[in-house]
C-alpha cells in the first residue's frame, strides 16, 4: 500500500531524513520508534505532504501512485490520515462542523454528494460512543481549551469518522493518562481491518501494549536502523536507545 524508497528530506537545508525505506501492506500495523530528533514526526509530515519539507531524493507512493506532486488535501482524499501530535485550535468551529466539512470535502473530491444529515448524525453518534466522547464535547470549538487527552481523543474520533486507508498516529499517547490511553487504543483497534493500515509513531513501548504492532522500526538520525517483530519494542524499552546508537556505530 505505502511504499517509501530511499527517502531524503530536509527543512531549510537541514537534512532530517537520510534514506528511509519502508513498505506497509494492507492490514498491517507498523510502529516507528526512536529517540527525540530522530525524524519520526518529520516522516509523518512528509507522508502527509507538509510543504515545509523538501524531498531531496527518493519517493513515496500510495497504491503505486507517486505522492510527491499531490497536495496535502489530495493525499487526504486518497485516504491518508494524520493524527497530529499537537492538534491546532480553530475557535468558533465546532467539532461537528469541522468533521462534517472534512467528510463532505473528501466526498466531493471523489465525486459524491454531501453525506445526508441523518446519516452524518448516526455516524457521529456511533463513533463518539466508540471513543466514549460526551455529546457536549462535539459542539465545543475545535481543540479550544481541550485538555491534552481530549485533543488526542478528538483526533482518533476524526480518524474513526473518516475511515482512512492509511492512518499515521504521531505520538498519540503523549498527554494521555492510562484510562484515556486504553479508550483511544481500543478505538484504534476497532478500526483495524484487512484493507487499511496504521503507522504508530511513539517514543515509548507503553502504547504498543495496547495497539500491538506487526512490525517495529527504529529510527535514528533519519534512517531506519533496525526492524523486527513486536518484541523489538520490549528490547528497546529494556536496553534504551543507547543500545541502538552503539550498534549503529559498530
Amino acid at each position, binding site marked *: 500500500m505505502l511504499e517509501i524508497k530511499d527517502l531524503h528530506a530536509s527543512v531549510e537545508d537541514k537534512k532530517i531524513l537520510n534514506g528511509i525505506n519502508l513498505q506497509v501492506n494492507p492490514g498491517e500495523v507498523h510502529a516507528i520508534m526512536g529517540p527525540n530528533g530522530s525524524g519520526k514526526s518529520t516522516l509523518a509530515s512528509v507522508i*502527509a*505532504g*507538509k*510543504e515545509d519539507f523538501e524531498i531531496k531524493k527518493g519517493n513515496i507512493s500510495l497504491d503505486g501512485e507517486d505522492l*510527491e*506532486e*499531490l*497536495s*496535502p*488535501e*489530495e*493525499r*487526504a*482524499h486518497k485516504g491518508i*490520515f*494524520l493524527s*497530529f501530535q499537537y*492538534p*491546532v485550535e*480553530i*475557535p*468558533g*468551529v465546532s467539532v461537528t*462542523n*469541522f468533521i462534517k*466539512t*472534512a467528510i463532505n*470535502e*473528501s466526498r466531493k*473530491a471523489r465525486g459524491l454528494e454531501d453525506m445526508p444529515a441523518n446519516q452524518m448524525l448516526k455516524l457521529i453518534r456511533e463513533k463518539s460512543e466508540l471513543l466514549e466522547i460526551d455529546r457536549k464535547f462535539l459542539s465545543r*470549538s*475545535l481543540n479550544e481549551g481541550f485538555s491534552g487527552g481530549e485533543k488526542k481523543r478528538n483526533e482518533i474520533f*476524526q480518524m474513526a469518522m*473518516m475511515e482512512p486507508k492509511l492512518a499515521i498516529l504521531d505520538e498519540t499517547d503523549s498527554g494521555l493518562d492510562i484510562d484515556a490511553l486504553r479508550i483511544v487504543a481500543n478505538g484504534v483497534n476497532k478500526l483495524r481491518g484487512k484493507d487499511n493500515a496504521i503507522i504508530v509513531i511513539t517514543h515509548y513501548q507503553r502504547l504498543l501494549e495496547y495497539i500491538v504492532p506487526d512490525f517495529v522500526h527504529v529510527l535514528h538520525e533519519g534512517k531506519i536502523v533496525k526492524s523486527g517483530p513486536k518484541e523489538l519494542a520490549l528490547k528497546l524499552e529494556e536496553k534504551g536507545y543507547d543500545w541502538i546508537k552503539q550498534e549503529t556505530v559498530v
Partner: protein
Amino acid sequence: MAYTEEELKKELETKEYEYGFYTDIESDTFPKGLNEDIVIAISKKKEEPEWMTEWRLEAFKVWKEMEEPEWANVTYEKPNFQEISYYSAPNKKPKYDSLDEVDPELLDTFKKLGIPLEEQKKLAGVAVDVVMDSVSVATTFKKTLAEKGIIFCSISEAIQEHPELVKKYIGTVVPQKDNFYAALNSAVFSDGSFCYIPKGVRCPMELSTYFRINQAGTGQFERTLVIADEGSYVSYLEGCTAPSRDENQLHAAVVELIALDNAEIKYSTVQNWFPGDKEGKGGVFNFVTKRGICEKNAKISWTQVETGSAVTWKYPSCVLKGDNSIGEFYSIAVTNNFQQADTGTKMIHLGKNTKSTIISKGISAGQSQNSYRGLVQVNSRAENARNFSQCDSLLMGNRCGAHTFPYIEAKNKTAQIEHEATTSKIGEDQIFYCNQRGIDTEKAIALIVNGFSKEVLNKLPMEFAVEAQKLLEISLEGSVG
C-alpha cells in the same frame, strides 16, 4: 504540491469583482459641481416643501465652512466636491404598480445580483424598497404594512406624504452640522428610505432595502429615517453591492434611528461596495453617519458586515438617553488588498441603568488596514451604566494591519466598563491541519473566518446570515498564498 497553491493564487487574482457591471438606463443627471443653486434645484426636482429647501440650504451653509476630517486612520485622495454630479435619476417614470412595467434591463441587473424581484416578492415576509440610483423605482408589500399602519417608503415620498413626521424627526439624531459628511448629505441627499412603526405595533416582516450606485461619477447621498413609536418593534435590513468603476465613487449616507419608550430597532447591514481592484485602483469611499437614540427602556441593535469599499469611515452609534435603555453593536469588518477601514461605534450613556455591548471582529488580509475606533461615554447622571466591549482582530499574511482605538470616558463612579481585545493570525499550521483533513486552503480560510465571526453572524436574520457568510468567503478569496 507547490503548483496547486500557485494555480489557486493565479486563478483568484484574475477573478473580477462579482458584481462588476452597470446598467445602461437613460438618466437625468445634473451638471457637476455644488452651489446653492444646485441644492435648490435638487429640492425642486423632488417637489419638496419650502421648509425642506430651507433645511438643506442651512446644511449647505454649514458645510461650506467645514473641513474634511483627518483623524481617521486612512489615507486617500480627497474627492473634489466640484467634480461630482449631485443628482441622477432614472428618467423613465420611476413608480410602477407591477414588475411588468419595470425596465427589463433593470430587472436583469437584479438577476445578476441574485435578487430577482419576482422571487423577492415571493420570499416570505420581506418587503423591498429598492433604491436604484437615488430614486426608488419599486416598492412592494406596501399594502400588508399599511394595514398595520406602518409607513415604509422613500424619504422623498415621506417628505410629501408625511411632512409632520419628517419635520419632527429629521436631523434630531444627526444634526446638519454634526460632521462634514453629514452636513453634505443634509444639503444634497437624493433619496433614501423612511419607516414609521406606530405605537405598540410589531412589524410582521423584515424590512429591507437594496442600495446600488449606478451612474458613473455620481455620488450617492442616502438619507434613512426609522422611527419606532412607543412599544413597537422593527427589524430593518440593508444590503448593497455596487458596479465596478475606474474612478472613485463617493458614498456619504446618513441613517437616523429613533426608538421611543419601550421600542426596539434592529438594524442589520451587509455592505459590499466595490472595494477597488487588487492594485487598489478605484473603489467606493464610504463615509457614513449612522446613529440612533433610545428613549426609556428602548433598545437599538446595530449589526454590520462590512466587506466592501476602498475606504470606510463608519461608526453606527447609540445615544442611550432614556433610563434602562440598551445599545448593541455587532460588527464584522473585512479588508483585503488595499482596502482601508476605520469603523466602530459610540455608546453614549445618558440615562440611568443603561447598558451597551460592543462586539467587533476585524479581519485584515492583503495589504489592507483595518481599524476599530470606539467610544464608550458615561455621563455624570448615568447611574449604574454598564458596558462590555470585545474587539478581536484576525490577520492574514504579513503585510496587513489591525489597529484598535478604544476611548473610554466615565464621569460617574458607578459605571462598569469592560474591554477585551485579542489579535490572532491565521497560521500555516491551522491551514495544514485543515488540508490534512481534505479541506483545501480556500475552504479552510472560509471555515476559520466564519468561526472567528460566528458571534456576530449569529446576530443577523437567517437569510442575511447565509448571504453574509458567502460574502466573507468571496471577499477573502486569494488572500493567503
